[in-house]
């Protein structure tokens, strides 16, 4: 009962807020437009937390979810029943085919509760922050309308009980993102970025739509209750194992588009043209996680498609590394964060792809913690941008430590969390993923465990253990692939720590430098912007420790929805812990030596004079050597990958988008305005059709 009401209220508040700002925003609310949205999001955040606790206390493993139907959209009985006299319906009763039923339903379980709490909480803070950040914008109300619409769509996406509804709000979320990226449409870059995001996402959505169609073809239903039911999946798997793989690949394509994974990641960095709160909300914390959510939601399908899982992991791992490499050389603060987001999302997919209990839990957990510290970082960056008069290039400013102490401290916390330093939340989640990958690299034992993980119901599945050879991707066996991915991921975490702190040092350390655009107004942000920063910072510090590995709360909670979570590996993998800590510390210290110190040193060097002194300066040599041995290759790699990214991948992806236009240009000359040309083309078409069909006939 309570759950039902809560589930209905959570999307209702943002929807109301959206309608209120839409109707009254332009005329009456104007610069007060944020009130309905803040309150709407706040109330729904409150409800979400209550919901999460209710779910935790009420739902049991026997009844892991609850579906609340809001609106019965289209319900049709099967038409075949009066068939009677002709061919009697075959006795094999279509047990799997319920009547067609489209409805708006809300599915409440631990997975959606987690997503909801995270989403509404971050959204509320971002809305509060935005009321300060966007202050004075001409289209203040439009911004908040879009944000409320976005929050609503995202909530509905998370609460969807069918693939159809999911797809619907998937598109709605994409649309909101398009509108928000292009919010400052006067800027040509913003308009172009919006268009690009839309185009690239369409490619992914096409995959998703195909997947949904395949699900329909295969399962005859789109309801989660039906499709994700392990028994049904097992039955279908027995009939058509390849179909499951195809479905998973198609769904994953959709996830790749929305979650900005290689090679469809090109839109996300450009999307930074939108207002910074949008970047924080949509392109860091919530929307881009929709893909991760989708894959997690479809775990029952992915479990049976080892090849698809390998693909997920592989794409995730490659994306993580590639994006981290690119982030090394960026000078735009928001772009660094954007690439870092892409990289972290890659981590999540890497974890999900393992199909291990700890991997899935880790992926989801990383999603939650990442939402906190990445939103924090983005808002911090926004704060800097706000103070610097819209300048976001790190070469233009430095040493803001003293000028903006609040921002500096919170940003530092966020960076530490992102880098994965020990007690902070990023460490716990990243560590879980890494240990899962490590575990997966130990080979088939783990896989057998995963394959059986659909557990109690399928005695057969147990009877025919994974006799099939371990899955391969492009001819590489899973174990070796995971070994490779593990090292890639570890290296990525080093890079992550490095580029994060490079940004920190460049921005906040060193000599105080303020761009002209900021004028004399460079100041610390108002409290309305700082308070959300601190709340997020607290989350970024403690969330991991409170919910993560040490307590196991998160795993246990998630295990209600995804049954296999919680089994298998429990202990702490000290090898991984140490490795990741070492990586983080190394990354930070390298960044310190390169960007934290030289800013002070050069002056001393310059005054103390002489190449002798310079030569004797140990540090400097070290730096040089380091540079030659290590940094230069990486820089080269980074610029190479950036080059590749910009020219090849970008060109390819947008090229696919341009294909229809090119195709449209081809038949254009026929449309030259002459009636007789038209008649000729008609007749020629007719004659050819006639010829072909008559010849083929018979």
């Amino acid at each position, binding site marked *: 009962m309570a759950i039902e009401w809560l589930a209905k209220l959570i999307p209702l508040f943002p929807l109301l807020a959206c309608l209120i700002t839409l109707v009254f925003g332009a005329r009456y609310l104007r610069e007060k437009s944020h009130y309905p949205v803040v309150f709407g999001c706040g109330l729904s955040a409150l409800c979400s937390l209550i919901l999460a606790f209710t779910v935790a206390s009420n739902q049991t493993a026997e009844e892991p979810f609850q579906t609340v139907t809001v609106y019965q959209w289209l319900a049709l009985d099967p038409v075949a029943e009066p068939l009677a006299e002709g061919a009697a319906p075959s006795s094999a009763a279509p047990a799997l085919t319920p009547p067609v039923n489209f409805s708006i339903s809300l599915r409440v379980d631990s997975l959606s509760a987690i997503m909801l709490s995270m989403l509404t909480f971050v959204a509320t803070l971002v809305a509060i922050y935005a009321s300060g950040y966007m202050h004075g914008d001409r289209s203040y109300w439009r911004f908040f309308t879009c944000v409320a619409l976005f929050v609503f769509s995202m909530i509905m996406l998370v609460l969807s009980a069918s693939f159809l509804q999911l797809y619907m709000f998937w598109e709605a979320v994409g649309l909101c993102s398009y509108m928000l990226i292009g919010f400052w449409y006067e800027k040509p870059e913003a308009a172009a970025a919006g268009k690009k995001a839309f185009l690239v996402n369409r490619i992914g959505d096409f995959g998703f739509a195909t997947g949904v169609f395949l699900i329909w073809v295969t399962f005859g239903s789109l309801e989660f209750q039906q499709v994700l039911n392990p028994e049904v999946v097992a039955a279908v798997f027995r009939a058509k194992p390849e179909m499951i793989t195809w479905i998973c690949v198609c769904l994953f394509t959709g996830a790749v588009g929305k979650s900005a994974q290689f090679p469809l990641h090109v839109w996300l960095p450009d999307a930074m043209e939108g207002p910074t709160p949008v970047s924080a909300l949509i392109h860091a914390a919530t929307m881009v996680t929709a893909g991760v959510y989708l894959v997690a939601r479809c775990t029952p399908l992915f479990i049976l498609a080892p090849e698809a899982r390998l693909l997920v992991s592989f794409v995730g791992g490659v994306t993580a590394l590639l994006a981290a490499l690119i982030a090394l050389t960026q000078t735009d603060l928001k772009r660094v964060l954007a690439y870092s987001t892409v990289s972290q999302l890659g981590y999540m997919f890497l974890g999900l792809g393992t199909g291990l209990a700890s991997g899935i839990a880790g992926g989801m957990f990383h999603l939650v913690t990442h939402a906190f510290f990445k939103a924090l970082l983005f808002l911090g960056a926004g704060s800097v941008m706000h103070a610097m008069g819209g300048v976001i290039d790190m070469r233009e400013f430095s040493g803001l430590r003293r000028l903006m102490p609040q921002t500096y401290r919170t940003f530092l916390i966020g960076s530490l969390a992102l880098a994965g330093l020990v007690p902070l939340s990023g460490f716990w989640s990243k560590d879980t993923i890494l240990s899962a990958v490590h575990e997966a690299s130990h080979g088939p034992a783990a896989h057998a465990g995963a394959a059986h993980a659909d557990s109690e119901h399928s005695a057969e599945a147990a009877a025919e253990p994974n006799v099939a050879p371990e899955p391969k991707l492009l001819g590489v066996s899973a174990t070796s692939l995971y070994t490779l991915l593990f090292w890639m991921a570890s290296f990525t975490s080093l890079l992550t720590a490095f580029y994060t702190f490079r940004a920190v040092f460049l921005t906040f350390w060193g000599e105080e430098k303020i761009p002209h655009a900021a004028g004399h107004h460079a100041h610390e942000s108002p409290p309305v912007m700082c308070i959300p920063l601190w709340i997020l910072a607290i989350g970024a510090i403690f969330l991991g420790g409170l919910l993560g590995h040490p307590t196991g709360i998160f795993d246990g909670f998630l295990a209600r929805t995804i049954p296999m979570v919680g089994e298998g590996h429990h202990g702490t993998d000290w090898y991984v812990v140490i490795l990741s800590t070492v990586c983080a510390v190394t990354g930070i210290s390298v960044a310190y030596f390169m960007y934290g110190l030289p800013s002070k040193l050069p002056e001393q060097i310059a005054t103390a004079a002489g190449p002798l002194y310079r030569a004797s300066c140990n540090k400097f040599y070290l730096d040089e050597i380091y540079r030659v041995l290590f940094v230069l290759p990486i820089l080269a790699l980074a610029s190479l990958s950036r080059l590749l990214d910009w020219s090849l991948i970008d060109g390819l992806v947008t090229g696919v988008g341009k294909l229809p236009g090119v195709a449209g240009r081809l038949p*254009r*000359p026929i*449309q*030259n*305005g*002459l*009636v*007789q040309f038209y*008649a*000729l083309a008609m*007749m020629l078409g007719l004659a050819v059709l006639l010829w072909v069909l008559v010849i083929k006939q018979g």
Partner: protein
Amino acid sequence: MPGSEPVLNNYLIVGALLFTLGTIGFLTRRNLIVMFLCAELMLQGVSLTLVAFGSFHGTWNGQVFSIFSLSLAAAEAGIALALFVVLFKRNHSLDVSIWQDLREPDQPAILDEPVAETPDEQHWPHLTPAGLLPGEPHAPQGHASHHGHARPTLAQAPVATAGGSHGN
């Protein structure tokens, strides 16, 4: 074989050929009226086909259908007449190629290359043009090389010789 009784197929083939000839005419001829007449020629082919089928099947339907297509042709002819007269008033030409302003925006207009005209190519039926005595000698007339540039009006237009060489 020629001389033997015509069978259904013979009629159908004549119909098909009339239809095709009409099509070719419609596709190639640029005079609005000739185009319309070619469409009517197509309808004639259809009409022949219908009647042949009807008499083959031994029912009236073919003829009835054919009668209706005849009425339709009459209706269309009425509209065509009005339309062509108005169009001619606009451009002083019955050339269908004048009407090509509406097209894909970046396509070039298709213009005729000017061709040297040979005035003696004019042929006239044995009809006496109003206001002229038959057999009155007349100077040949050079034609506008391109539609729309020099539009001969009724008043200016020199009347060609009656009784000139004809046939083709």
